[in-house]
């Protein structure tokens, strides 16, 4: 019953899933161009994945469909999964991943688990040339953030999931079900949701807690030892909230003001750099004193490095979801679906949560967790209360123009 107070019809969590990034209006604008592109593609190389290189086509092409490869699942008992770091349960000695081993034992399918998803843009840049050229990426399933899922669907780079292979999908929390970036959840199922926050290492800060973004960006004792995320929505979201803005309806001027604040910190030598998920190592070692981080990462690193601290800033923090998708031409689609199905068992998800400390999208996880570890059931990072969620904000969807403009401005800051 506690479950219900947490998830059902939670406006914030629901809003999180609306983060479809390209707004509906721009999706419509794109539709006209799409039919032309589809027509061109039909005339051109049949069988190949429709590419985005055909000139001035639409931005948002819901009509593009991903090519499927011959599914080898029945003969090759493997599935290739690309995921972010610190994003799955690990055994005490750090050598195995118990939930994956249990999956292999149960189904006979071996999982090639690779932690090569460091950053949405970077990963996209890595697989896009393959997908565009109609080549298999060598991956059967990966986990992309909401706005990236929107882009992958739009460009026809991910396949529809066969729900017949995922009966457990019925356990999907109601608040995660209808999302703007994937209406009816045809292409994606969430893996975890979580917060963008501040992480710090008290060993490197001299025992000091880092409580606000302003402190992170200006405290001279942190000079040269601060990192921010290349993930624009988390870094810019946190900074805009620090400046008192509502990121579900910010303006271009708000965005620029936040950029200026980061630029100032950069010019003063406060920043060590911008990172993807690879900040975890430096933070644990103390080379990074404080940074913009993802909630679960810091919480799970804390198990081995108790000197780490985590702040959900009082000014507000970002909320996002990461989702399973199956790319075009994946050779083991059915195995990937079986894998997703396996994790949609609340008992399995409960095991994962005890380690990753993110918000599970599977109904019944809380009850399963509470049965084994009552304390974990009260963890605000895993099962946030209405109060915790009230301060979480969701980065609003961007129009295609905005996405290009904002991403360019932000990348000028992160790359130089």
């Amino acid at each position, binding site marked *: 019953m506690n479950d219900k107070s947490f998830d059902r019809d939670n406006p914030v969590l629901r809003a999180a899933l609306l983060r479809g990034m390209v707004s509906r209006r721009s999706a419509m604008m794109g539709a006209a161009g799409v039919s032309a592109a589809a027509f061109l593609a039909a005339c051109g190389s049949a069988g190949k994945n429709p590419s985005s290189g055909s000139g001035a086509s639409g931005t948002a092409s819901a009509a593009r469909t991903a090519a499927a490869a011959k599914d080898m699942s029945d003969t090759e008992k493997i599935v290739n999964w690309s995921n972010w770091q610190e994003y799955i349960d690990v055994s005490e000695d750090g050598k195995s991943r118990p939930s994956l081993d249990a999956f292999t034992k149960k189904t006979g399918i071996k999982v090639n688990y690779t932690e090569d998803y460091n950053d949405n843009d970077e990963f996209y840049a890595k697989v896009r040339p393959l997908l565009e050229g109609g080549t298999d990426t060598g991956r059967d399933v990966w986990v992309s953030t909401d706005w990236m899922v929107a882009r992958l669907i739009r460009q026809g780079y991910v396949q529809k999931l066969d729900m017949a292979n995922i009966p457990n999908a019925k356990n999907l929390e109601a608040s995660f079900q209808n999302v703007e970036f994937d209406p009816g959840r045809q292409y994606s199922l969430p893996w975890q949701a979580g917060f963008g926050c501040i992480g710090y290492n008290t060993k490197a800060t001299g025992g000091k807690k880092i409580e606000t973004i302003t402190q992170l960006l200006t405290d001279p004792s942190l000079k*040269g030892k601060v990192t921010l995320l290349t993930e624009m929505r988390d870094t810019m979201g946190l900074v805009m909230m620090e400046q008192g803005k509502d990121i579900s309806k910010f303006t271009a001027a708000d965005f620029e003001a936040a950029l200026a604040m980061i630029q100032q910190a950069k010019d003063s030598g406060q920043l060590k750099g911008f990172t993807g998920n690879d900040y975890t190592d430096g933070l644990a070692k103390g080379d990074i004193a404080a940074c913009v981080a993802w909630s679960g990462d810091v919480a799970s690193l804390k198990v081995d490095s108790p000197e780490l601290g985590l702040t959900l800033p009082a000014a507000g923090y970002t909320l996002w979801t990461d989702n399973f998708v199956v790319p075009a031409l994946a050779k083991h689609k059915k195995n990937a679906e079986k894998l997703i199905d396996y994790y949609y068992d609340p008992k399995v998800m409960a095991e994962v949560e005890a380690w990753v400390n993110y918000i599970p999208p599977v109904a019944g996880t809380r009850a399963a967790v509470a049965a084994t570890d009552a304390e974990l059931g009260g963890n605000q990072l895993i099962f946030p209360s209405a109060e915790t969620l009230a301060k979480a904000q969701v980065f609003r969807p961007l129009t295609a123009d905005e996405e290009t403009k904002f991403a360019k401005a932000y990348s000028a800051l992160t790359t130089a």
Partner: protein
Amino acid sequence: MADAAVLSTGSSVAEGRRRRNWVPYALLLPGLLWLFVFFVVPMITLASQSLQEGNVDDGFVFTGNVAVYGQALTTYWPQMLRSLLYAGTATVLALVLGYPLAYFIAQKAGRWKNVVLVLVIAPFFTSFLIRTLAWKTILSDNWVVTDWANKLGVTSVLQALGLTANDSLLFSPFAVVMGLTYNFLPFMILPLYATLERLDPRLLEAASDLYASPWQTFRKVTWPLSLPGVVAGTLLTFIPASGDFINARLLGNTQTTMIGAVIDSQFLRVLDYPLAAALSFVLLVIILVLVASYVRKAGTEELL
């Protein structure tokens, strides 16, 4: 009879020469083909890419947009300048460190010559990335090197020189230049070794017979004769170092970004292909101009 014999040999020699004439060209062909496919074609693609406009979603279209070059220069000139400065510093450091070592190996190492040479090359058995990551560990805040540097006051000196920002060595211009110097040092040592090894010891003896001091001998004999090695070594160090993107990324901070890292992220993260291509060309031209004037000044065109 004799005349005829002479004539006939003459013509067969001429014929042979003619036949042999095309052989060198035929031997050049695979190399030229290689250069055409893997150098000329990518260059042309890059040039056309730099003049395109568009984005990843809609695709890129050739528009002949030259403005991108201006944008590349005005936005990223600090990174461009910094790269040349860091690469230049690393080259000078590598020369200062590498010359005595190369001289030692070539002239004094005796039967240890091969062992020392292998030691110079040994780092190449591990990847460039791993070697740079090792520096990250060596210069890490929680390790002896930084501890000692702090105790001995080295860090305060570096800080006063503006080479580090705080009491740590890592993530500073100092660390980046260190990394560059270390990584490209073998490229300096090997050509220097090759020229110094050919140095005739009798010339040095002659110099001392003529009452030259060791310094004069070095300045008038050794150094001029090793110039081809110096030029080759500095070029082999400077050119790759100025385009390097690993050292600045792993050992630097946001104020030490080099142009290679900018090009890398523009190509692979931001996906702004035209800007990345334009930046590559600007860097290429700058290096070409610098190298050409350097070689001219060193007066060693015939030695290259």
